[in-house]
């Protein structure tokens, strides 16, 4: 076993997921099987091999900083689940002392 339920719960928190107990159970066993499969990579010597993050060489693409038409405020918040006036509405971020 590479990872236990504690690791699964921690990773879920990092990924901002709240898992049900049965999901923790399932993902612990499935992730262990998948990670075991990934271990095949460790049989390869990659000492000195440059990592590839893109298959086609991509350089940093720059452009002129020009003002162009953009979305209006109305268009920007059109899909918000909750809004107030021209703003996105969210639950409290900072704890309020009682």
């Amino acid at each position, binding site marked *: 076993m590479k990872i236990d339920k504690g*690791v699964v719960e921690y*990773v879920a928190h990092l990924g901002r997921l709240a898992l049900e107990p049965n999901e923790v159970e399932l993902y612990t066993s499935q992730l262990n099987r998948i990670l075991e*499969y990934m271990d*095949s*990579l460790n049989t*390869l010597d990659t000492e000195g091999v440059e990592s590839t993050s893109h*298959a086609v060489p991509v350089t940093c693409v720059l452009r002129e900083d020009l003002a162009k038409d953009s979305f209006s405020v109305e268009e920007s918040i*059109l899909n918000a*689940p909750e809004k107030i006036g021209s703003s996105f509405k969210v639950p*409290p971020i900072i704890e309020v002392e009682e």
Partner: protein
Amino acid sequence: MEDILELTIAQIRELLQKRKISSVELTNYFLERIKRFDGDISSYIKVTEEYALKMAGDADKKIADGENGQLLGIPLGIKDIYCTKGIETTCASRILKGFIPPYDATIIRRLKDEGYVHLGRLNMDEFAMGSSTETSYFGITRNPWDLERIPGGSSGGSAAAVAADECIASIGSDTGGSIRQPAALCGVVGMKPTYGRVSRFGLIAFASSLDQIGPFTKDVEDCAIMMNAIAGYDPRESTSVPLNVPDYTEFISRGIGGWKVGIPKEYFIEGIHPDIEKAMQRAITTVEGLGATCVEISLPHTEYCLAVYYIIAPAEASSNLARYDGVKYGFRPQGSIDLLDMYKKTRSAGFGAEVKRRIMIGTYALSSGYYDAYYKKASQVRALIKRDFTEAFTLCDAILTPTSPTPAFKIGEKMDDPLQMYLSDIFTISTNLAGIPGISVPCGFTKDGLPIGAQFLAGHFEEGKLIQIASAFEKYANIEKRRPAL
């Protein structure tokens, strides 16, 4: 009108231009077919009837005015992964239910510039994560050749709709085989272009170093026509490559006399369905009959592709999917006590099981202490996989492989075993890791009457070569023309 379903884009365009048929008539024909047959297949998440008929009416006016766009008046189906202004775009996820983009993806804009008709939104695996179109929030899609079987995935709706003649052609996306594998399993043509060839601006991202957009068509000539419409540089997409795009239809009748075609020995492994193995032997004979020589080549790191892919793709996905937080768009459950609670409730109820599993794998692989062991290691092996192809293409002009190790499998067969499901992509993912183009073309049927696909691969930006070999193959292989019995 029954014979319309036999016609390709090239043939229908001629009928439209000669005014033998109008785009509105054509669009109504496909809308009727969808009504009649899509209840069983469910290739569409949503049919945009009114929008389609308006576009068809506009196309008819343009035809009357003498205009001649490459897709003017042609009804297409669109995978529900491209932002389309004013049309609900969900990526088959609950978390994007109700999302109405305020802009068009570049691919949609290009299709509009060519005068296409938008029939509707095609089903897919949630966030394009899957090989069977069974993870969609809106339900499964069935294979038109056998309704008990999956159509492949993730672009299963796009493949099934073309196979069932519920559109003339369609658009899908391919991160590890999501165009080629369903094309093979549904008996149609599907191409994944080179990374950087088609702009992804407005494509909902899954794994950004792997995602590409491409067409599903009835034949290779239509694939060339679609590629002409969608390929090319886009300043809005920083990985889009500023190279000239050839006219792909010019590669159609060139033949492949004198070509060397590589047969990678690592792709003919145990576990391939016997009928697929036989079909591949026939494919090799066909290619040689066209005056090419088949040579055995080696892609020595093939066995590591799946492990590399299932680290890199989930890692990138876990990062891309961080944006779904319940603030800006889509689904948000009620009753959260604070912001963190809202994030967790939104994401837990908004994502399905496979998406959550991949967020977990990716987050783990990128987390402190494991990054070097997983993500970095995978990125290094990816360099070796890419080098395998570079070396192979010094020995051959194109590579021939099976597209999928098995024909379409039964619904539910692999849903409880993620690793078995991931193995469905074993012949297609190396292409995405190396960034090269690939095409799947029909190459026969199993004894049970299920379609089989052959895959051709070429070097970066050599889509023309793929059109050349695939069209020659299609013509000479003389695969029996069958349509699914609906």
